[in-house]
């Protein structure tokens, strides 16, 4: 008797799931299409052929060296997205990934240049240093929120500014930069020791950063922690309803501090692919803006590890192929416009889809229950 309602319920559950996936995909796809359309119109208005522009990007994007570049860049973007998403999952807006990764990369570069241990100790050491520094920097905002109720949005934005100042203060000759650099005007740390260099894979399109495996590992762990652990459940519960989580026994203050520390630790990793695989030093030219880009990537990827992978790849693809646009006479900035439009569209679309989905499910449940009741009544009549 218990088995028959079970089997009756399964297909219903599956249908709900399938629809949820479809609805989940609809929003980002629509947002991307809409932004392509808008940018096309923008190009058209400025008197340029939009189709050719997209063609240039696509043609270059399918070449193997562009693909390797895209993957390398996506590795960095992915880490940025995940760092921000971790906080987002419990409604904690860590806007400060920007400052966290800069300070973390500076310290990792400095230590990497001072210490020369075998690779299997050196690289984990640098990873830990970067994560620790990032966590401490984010932890300041966490402590302020827990003890004084300071909004993490405000404090992390301010900490970004402070981070820039701290970097400027430390990155001077005699402190973190070598005393006499001589050859160059730019101030930078010493290059990290050779044992700090992360491995690369040689492909047809050039060297593929081994750090991509770290990014994948971070994604897998992120997903497992969220869905399979008590901590992850508490985190998601807090994100969905802080009051319900509090009543259910979640120590919300401790959750805030922990999430801020983890988010900061992940942010600490953002600068490392470039540091350990490409530039090997931290200088004034170290790529800025990755923390803010991470916010956009996390939003587009809906804070899920798989979604963030796709959005990181998309953003990386756009950035890599945009370089080709000026050669064909197009402004490279059109890609920035496109990224911005995608983010705006996707935020709106997600909210619309969320409301639609909720309403639709309520209606479906109502209809299904009514059908069940009717069937039960029929049975009674027959019996």
């Amino acid at each position, binding site marked *: 008797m218990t088995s028959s309602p079970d089997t009756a319920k399964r297909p*219903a559950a599956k249908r709900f799931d399938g629809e949820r996936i479809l609805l989940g995909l609809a929003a980002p796809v629509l947002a991307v299409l809409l932004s392509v359309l808008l940018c096309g119109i923008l190009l058209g208005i400025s008197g340029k052929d939009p189709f050719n522009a997209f063609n240039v990007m696509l043609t270059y994007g399918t070449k193997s060296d562009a693909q390797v570049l895209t993957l390398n860049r996506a590795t960095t973007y992915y880490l940025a997205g995940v760092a921000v998403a971790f906080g987002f999952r419990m409604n904690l807006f860590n806007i400060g990934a920007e400052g966290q990764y800069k300070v973390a990369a500076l310290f990792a570069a400095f230590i990497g240049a001072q210490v020369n241990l075998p690779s299997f100790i050196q690289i984990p050491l640098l990873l830990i240093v970067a994560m620790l520094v990032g966590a401490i920097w984010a932890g300041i905002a966490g402590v302020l929120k827990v003890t004084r109720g300071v909004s993490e949005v405000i404090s992390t934005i301010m900490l970004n500014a402070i981070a820039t100042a701290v970097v400027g203060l430390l990155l001077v000759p005699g402190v973190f930069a070598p005393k006499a650099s001589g050859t160059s005007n730019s101030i930078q740390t010493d290059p990290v020791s050779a044992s700090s260099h992360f491995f690369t894979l040689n492909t047809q399109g050039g060297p593929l950063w081994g750090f991509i495996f770290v990014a994948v590992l971070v994604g897998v762990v992120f997903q497992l922690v969220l869905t399979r652990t008590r901590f992850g459940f508490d985190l998601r519960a807090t994100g969905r309803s802080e009051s319900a989580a509090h009543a259910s026994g979640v*120590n919300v203050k401790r959750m805030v501090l922990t999430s801020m520390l983890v988010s900061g630790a992940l942010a600490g990793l953002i600068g490392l692919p470039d540091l350990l695989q490409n530039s090997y030093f931290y200088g004034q030219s170290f790529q800025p803006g990755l923390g803010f880009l991470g916010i956009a990537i996390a939003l587009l990827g809906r804070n899920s590890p798989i979604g963030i992978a796709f959005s990181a790849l998309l953003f990386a693809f756009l950035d890599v192929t945009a370089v080709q646009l000026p050669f064909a006479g197009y402004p490279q900035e059109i890609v920035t416009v496109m990224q911005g439009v995608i983010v705006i569209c996707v935020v709106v679309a997600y909210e619309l889809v969320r409301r639609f989905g909720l309403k639709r499910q309520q209606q479906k449940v109502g209809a299904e229950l009514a059908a069940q009741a009717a069937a039960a009544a029929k049975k009674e009549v027959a019996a």
Partner: protein
Amino acid sequence: MALQRSDAPPYHQEIAITASEPALSKGGNPSAGTATPAVELRGITKRFPGVVANHDINLTVQRGTVHALMGENGAGKSTLMKILYGMQKPDEGTIAINGEQTEFNTPGDAIARGIGMVHQHFMLADNLTVWENVVLGGEKLHGIGAKAKAKIKEISDQYGLGVRPDVLVEDLGVADRQRVEILKVLYRGAKILILDEPTAVLVPQEVDALFDNLRDLKSEGVTVIFISHKLHEVLSVADAISVIRRGTTVGDADPADVTARQLAEMMVGAELPSPESRESTVTDVEMLKVDGLRIAKADAEGIERVVLDDITLRIRKGEILGIAGVEGNGQAELVEAIMGMLPLDAGSVVLDGSDLSSSLTRARREAGIGYIPEDRHKHGLLLEAPLWENRILGHVTEAPNSKGVLLDPAAARADTQRIVEEFDVRTPGIDVTAASLSGGNQQKLIIGREMSHNPKLLIAAHPTRGVDVGAQAQIWEQIRSAQREGLAVLLISADLDELIGLSDTIRVIYRGRLVADADPATVTAEDLGTAMTGAATGHIESDPEAVEEDKAIAAEGTETEAEHPHHGESHDDESHDEPTDTADGTTQAGE
């Protein structure tokens, strides 16, 4: 007695009001005999996912009167007023303003028809002057200069509000701010004023001053709709009263003829839970000991107030202790204190011999406290999460939900399926979100979850609020069967009949103190209502005849049962310390 029940035909209700109130028509109303009512709501129904907030509400407000709308929190008053003010659209029903059918899409439409609302929480900019606050958003009416200021002066004098336009709002007290809010609404041409619990933030003298203002407004032809659940205030200021319970109008009353007790009875209802005869399951084993609990908390205005004072109570195994009281007298804080959600200033909480006073909420739940929260959407569920995740909520550290630090989704899902079947949760599956279930089914899921961890103590705050009648009976039965198995239950309810029907002992909470106690077998809802207003303290015992009469009314429809078992020793020792002298005089009130 001008007190109609909901079963009375609607036209009776109108007669009751129009007869008691001489028509105050202004501006040459031509209609002969009866005045056109200022507001007429007919058959208003509003559904939200999971709850019906308003069901077939009828309300008629005469022009130039103060009309009180009464009901417990959650009865549907606010939703109704939001509909009248255009913030929500009704699913069914009609709104007529001054006899004209209208439809409001936004508050702007309502303002255009002369309706204004003063919210419970003020919406003023502290760093601007009164004058700037009033003009803000209404610049087109009288400009922003001297003309506007003159108009403010004029309105202030006309209605005796005494508002000074040049003062900064941050320098004003609560009562003055409220007058600014009223003036703001009048400035925009409102002739119908909605005041949402205006006295909640005021001290008694300020309340008197506000009521003088309301009388001035009335004499100038303004209609006031006054929302409150404070009985004596309503009786002193209102010209007509409508009572809402469980989302529908239960009747109208004339303040000249109705007593506070009758009103309380209307607000909380008189449907007893099916009065089956049952034996006492109370044992001698003390399960919960709460001693000298005291909590002071800052309120919305930032003033520190003592919300719980010297609370001492005992609940034994198999006992249901009911807490009666008008809402906002400390019930919510009492629950949160026992759950560990509010820090204690003094006192101790001991469950089954182990001191939990300094434990966190999670440790208390693990120690065996089950919790059915007052607001299930806010404290009991993750609305956008599937049912099986909601089954984990609150018990994430316990089997079958987790093994060590890892979750066990398969076991949690299987157990959710069991709860759905055992507790009759009507749902197509365990993967739908909690938001898509009806209120009653959400509540059954919560009860099933809390009962699945063998609690020693169950805290049930308003367990049947917003729940349909069918689910209500099931929930009562589930609480009773848990009691038979030796559970201690702390029951908090605004429904006096639920309290009397389920409890073994009743304590009355008033302004954060337990002021009275009663044996449900020997007390009427009326006398309990009196104690809830603070008018009676100590041990309350009603006239036996009145108790019998009460039971007879309650048993109507169901089968009358012969004898109610007495629970002789169901009063706590400490209750005898409290003064009992007033009890006899005030509460031997059987008619």
